[in-house]
């Protein structure tokens, strides 16, 4: 049992480290380090431009999309090399958040289902950050139950005509392309009438509207489709086989390991180390310490669970299902941590302006963003179902709509 690299891993790490030291945009390092919960803002620089510039630089030197084949703009690296790269890239990796969906989900789906010519045309600019991709699955009527989606695709000659609405699309407003899951046959069971496409987000009839979230910020969008035309050549997989295609996409979402999830614990520990309460430092208070200890072991448990997964990768194995606990644990933990950090501040905890609030309002922002972390990318309840069914082998939920034609499934609860 050890934390040491193999000689090959050490050599790869040294090479990555040296390249990053010589090339990373150090002017952003401090701001990137401070960005604790995803939201990166750079003073005096456009984040999109900064991100694209860093990605371009990486791509030119062969450090983009490490796990992709070289002919599509990647490096052909092993999974463990990808993890080592992420460790070495550290805070600079946060510049790449707008590429995560394209690189992690759209790219692999294209790789599995697009034609060779299309792959050579679309994947290298995706890898280099020149083009950004988004994923258009969720709908107002289909979130956890994504197969309940209603956006229609109807064949007209060699084209498909799309009408409907998507929601929760990250980055749609700056995306160049998207992969789109549609309903092509509403007369069969819901999973059996879906078809996947990719499309140019600048196509006529595509309208992107930002969603104002409960937190007040806008990270996501609604995307409306009105008579949008997509050539049949941009279909991914067979007609009505879109569900299986989407499983490839989602499987890739869950394969990303080693990036580390935010729990809010390091921030809370620092805060308690510095916060003066009526009778002394917060961290010297027994009640505070008990709370901290409970979160400390969750944070370390997640960290070492991820180390175990990385070890499996290092041995050339696929990591086990234990890695699926990360999002479930971290999501509710960050909410609890933020709630407690405000509790420690008393009435002043309600203040959220950076000039008035403790640590510039970090925990207030965390609290208001946290409900989203428990919903996006699979709700807590879906994650528990996944663990129960795929890890523990418990029966799937009973699905009353499984064998019902989609257009006969009730659409309202209380009529």
């Amino acid at each position, binding site marked *: *049992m050890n*934390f040491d690299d193999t000689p090959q891993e050490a050599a790869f790490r040294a090479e990555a480290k040296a390249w990053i030291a010589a090339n990373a945009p150090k002017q952003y390092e401090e701001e990137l380090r401070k960005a604790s919960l995803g939201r990166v803002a750079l003073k005096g620089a456009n984040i999109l431009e900064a991100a694209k510039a860093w990605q371009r630089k990486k791509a030119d030197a062969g450090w983009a999309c490490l796990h992709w084949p070289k002919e599509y703009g990647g490096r052909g690296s092993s999974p463990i090399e990808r993890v080592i790269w992420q460790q070495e890239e550290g805070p600079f990796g946060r510049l790449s958040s707008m590429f995560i969906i394209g690189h992690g989900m759209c790219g692999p789906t294209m790789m599995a289902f697009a034609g060779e010519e299309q792959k050579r045309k679309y994947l290298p600019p995706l890898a280099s950050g020149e083009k950004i991709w988004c994923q258009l699955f969720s709908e107002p009527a289909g979130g956890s139950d994504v197969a309940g989606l209603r956006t229609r695709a109807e064949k007209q000659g060699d084209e498909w005509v799309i009408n409907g609405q998507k929601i929760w699309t990250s980055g749609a407003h700056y995306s160049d392309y998207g992969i789109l899951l549609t309903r092509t046959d509403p007369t069969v069971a819901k999973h059996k009438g879906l078809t996947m496409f990719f499309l140019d987000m600048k196509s006529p009839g595509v309208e992107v509207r930002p969603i104002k979230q409960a937190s007040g910020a806008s990270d996501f969008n609604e995307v409306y489709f009105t008579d949008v035309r997509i050539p049949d050549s941009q279909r991914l997989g067979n007609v009505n086989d879109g569900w299986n295609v989407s499983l490839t996409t989602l499987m890739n979402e869950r394969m990303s390991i080693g990036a580390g999830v935010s729990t809010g614990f390091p921030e809370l520990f620092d805060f308690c180390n510095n916060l003066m309460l009526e009778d002394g430092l917060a961290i010297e208070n027994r009640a505070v310490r008990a709370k901290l200890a409970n979160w400390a072991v969750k944070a370390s448990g997640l960290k070492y669970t991820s180390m175990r997964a990385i070890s499996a990768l290092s041995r050339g194995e696929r990591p086990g299902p234990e890695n699926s*606990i990360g999002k479930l644990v971290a999501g509710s933990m960050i909410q609890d941590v933020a709630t407690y950090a405000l509790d420690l501040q008393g009435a002043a905890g309600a203040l959220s302006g950076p000039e008035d609030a403790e640590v510039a309002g970090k925990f207030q922002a965390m609290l208001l963003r946290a409900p989203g972390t428990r919903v996006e990318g699979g709700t807590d309840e879906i994650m528990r179902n996944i663990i129960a069914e795929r890890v523990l082998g418990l029966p799937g939920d009973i699905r009353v709509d499984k064998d019902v034609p989609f257009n006969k499934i009730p659409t309202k609860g209380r009529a």
Partner: protein
Amino acid sequence: MNFDFSDEQKQMRDEARKFLSEQCPPKAVREVLDGKAPYDKALWKGLAEMGFLGVAIPEQFGGAGAGHLELCVIAEEMGRALAPVPFSSTVYLAAEALLIAGSDAQKQKWLPKIASGDAIGTLALFEGHGNPSPKAIKVTANGGVLNGVKKPVADGAIADFAVVAARTGSSGRESDISLFIVDLKAGGVEIKSLTNIDLTRGQAAITFKDAKAEPLGATGEGWGVLTQVLDRAAVLMAFEQVGGADRALEMGRDYALDRIAFGRPIGSFQAVKHMLADMYVSATLARSNCYYGAWALSTNAGELPEAAAAARISATQAFQHCAKNNIQVHGGMGFTWEFDCHMYYRRANAMALGLGSLSYWEDALIDRMRKKNAA
């Protein structure tokens, strides 16, 4: 990176599991539960023959000289099987104290007997309610004899010797505390068995009346040694707890698959599925914390104090969580004497206290993290 046990260590775990499934089925645990024997003597002998008692004891002292990672995998299996033997008292506490502070002669006297199953040892630390603290120790050592009462002492009624923490000074500092070895079969020792929540493991009160005692380590250095012993035992016990948690989770899962209510397996109801998923999460977090503890223990790393506290807290929570919800999944049957669920519930809750309770270790963890942060 290989943050995992080696193939040889995993093989040893498989051997231990096979041995314990044959030699320590629930029926054997129930012999002790029902008060028919104070511990499973045949199993104790068998563990000695398998080389498990002395796995981390150096060969020169009669052990296998393997190491602590090997001991961790065996500990996990002992917890899983609820082995009703004084393994933790003898191997994690008494043997570790001897390895850390014992003279060559003391090691020669006791360690080979531990490895061969001929001596049971324990640690006599607590004196009534409260957690490990130098201030709580009132038993005195003067002129080579001990006076006072230790209670509770795990496996005290079956132990041959005890490592005893006693007061040799009155300055109010840690240096007031020294460790001694006491032959519990000798004069001046009165032992009384005490009923406790885990009926498969004994607890006792030991009264010393001018009992002859031999110093273990230097006078005034007892507390430092004790802290090390507790940290090391915390990691090893955490493996037992993780083994117990995993087994309780499996029992709940199996029952949820087999039990039909409202026309379907109860494991198809989300309320039950999600309860089991949460048990899996606790057990997984605990296992990962334990692996880090095992790494720190086996390499004697400076991170051991922090890693041990994290493993202890996480594994204690996981075992308690899995044991109580295993009963909940079983419903009424889980609350019968006949079903094994309560044996895990009893063990989980007794283990949560034996080395100092959760609140003690929570406090210790934050202290240790602060120290590391300041350094």
